[in-house]
C-alpha cells in the first residue's frame, strides 16, 4: 500500500486545505470538540431515559414532558442540549457551506439562513423550556400530569 512508502513524521504536520483552514478559526475547532464531548453525555442520557427506560417511545406525551420539567435539573439539561447541539450543528454546517457553496450569492444566503434559523430556534427553545406551564387552564385534565390536580 501507498502508506508504507510514506514516512510518518511529515504526515504529522497539518496539511492546509484550500477553504476550511484559515476560515475555521481555532475557537470553532475548540468549541466543536468541547461541545461534542459534553453532548455525548447529555444526548446519550436523554436517549436512554426517553427511549429505553419505562415504556420507551410510547410513554412520551405532554404529561411525560411536564413530569420531567417539574425538576429544574431536566430544564437545565434540555437547555444545555439545545444551546450546545444548535451551536455544534451550526458550526459544522458552516464548515460544510464553506467547503461546497461557491459564487457570490449562494454562500451568503446559506450562511444567513443558518445564522437566522440557529438564533430563532435557540430563542424559541429557551422560551419554551423556561415559560412552560405544566397545568394550562382549560386543557383536558386527562392529558395533564397527575400533580395538576393538587395545583388547581
Amino acid at each position, binding site marked *: 500500500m*501507498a502508506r508504507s512508502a*510514506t514516512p*510518518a513524521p*511529515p*504526515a*504529522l504536520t497539518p*496539511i492546509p486545505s484550500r477553504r476550511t483552514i484559515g476560515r475555521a478559526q481555532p475557537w470553532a475547532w475548540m468549541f466543536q*470538540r468541547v461541545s*461534542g*464531548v459534553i*453532548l*455525548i453525555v447529555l*444526548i*446519550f442520557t436523554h*436517549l436512554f431515559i426517553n*427511549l*429505553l427506560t419505562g*415504556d*420507551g*417511545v*410510547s410513554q*412520551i*406525551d*405532554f*404529561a411525560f*414532558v*411536564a413530569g420531567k420539567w417539574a425538576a429544574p435539573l431536566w430544564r437545565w439539561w434540555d437547555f444545555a442540549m*439545545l444551546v450546545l*447541539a*444548535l451551536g455544534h*450543528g451550526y458550526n*459544522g*454546517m458552516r464548515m*460544510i457551506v464553506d467547503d461546497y457553496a461557491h459564487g457570490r450569492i449562494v454562500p451568503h444566503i446559506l450562511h444567513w439562513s443558518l445564522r437566522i*434559523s440557529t438564533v430563532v*430556534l435557540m430563542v*424559541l*427553545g429557551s*422560551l*419554551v423550556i423556561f*415559560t*412552560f*406551564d405544566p397545568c*394550562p387552564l382549560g*386543557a*383536558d385534565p386527562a*392529558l*395533564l400530569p397527575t400533580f395538576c390536580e393538587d395545583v388547581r
Partner: protein
Amino acid sequence: MPPATTLYRGREGMWMWLVHRTTGVAIFFFLLIHILDTSLVRVSPEAYNAVIGMYKTPVYAIVEVGLVAAIILHAFNGLRIIAVDRWTWALRHQRMLSWIVWGIFAVLMAGFLPRHLMHAFGGA
C-alpha cells in the same frame, strides 16, 4: 503528480469522514424538527400529543433507529477525531480506531434495537 498525502483520502479515514459529514447533516436537520415539535408543549397538550404520536408509528420507529445509529456513529467517530488530533499514538492507530468505532456501534445498537422495537411494535 500524485495527490498530496493526507490521512483523509482513501480507505478508513475517508469513509469515516464521509460518515461523519452525512450523519452530522442528518442529525442537524432532525434537531431543527425536534425543537419545533417539542415547542408544541407551549401550544397545547393536544397539539403536542398529536405530533409526538407520529414518533410512535412504525415508519417513524424505523427513522428513530436510523437517528440513534447516526448519533452513535457521529459521537464515537468524533471522539476518534479528537484522539487522532491529540495523541500521536491515536494518529498511528487511526485505522484501528475506525474499526473500534464500528465495534462500539454494533454493541450499542444490539442493546438498543430489541428494546426499542419492542416498545414501538410490541406494545411492551
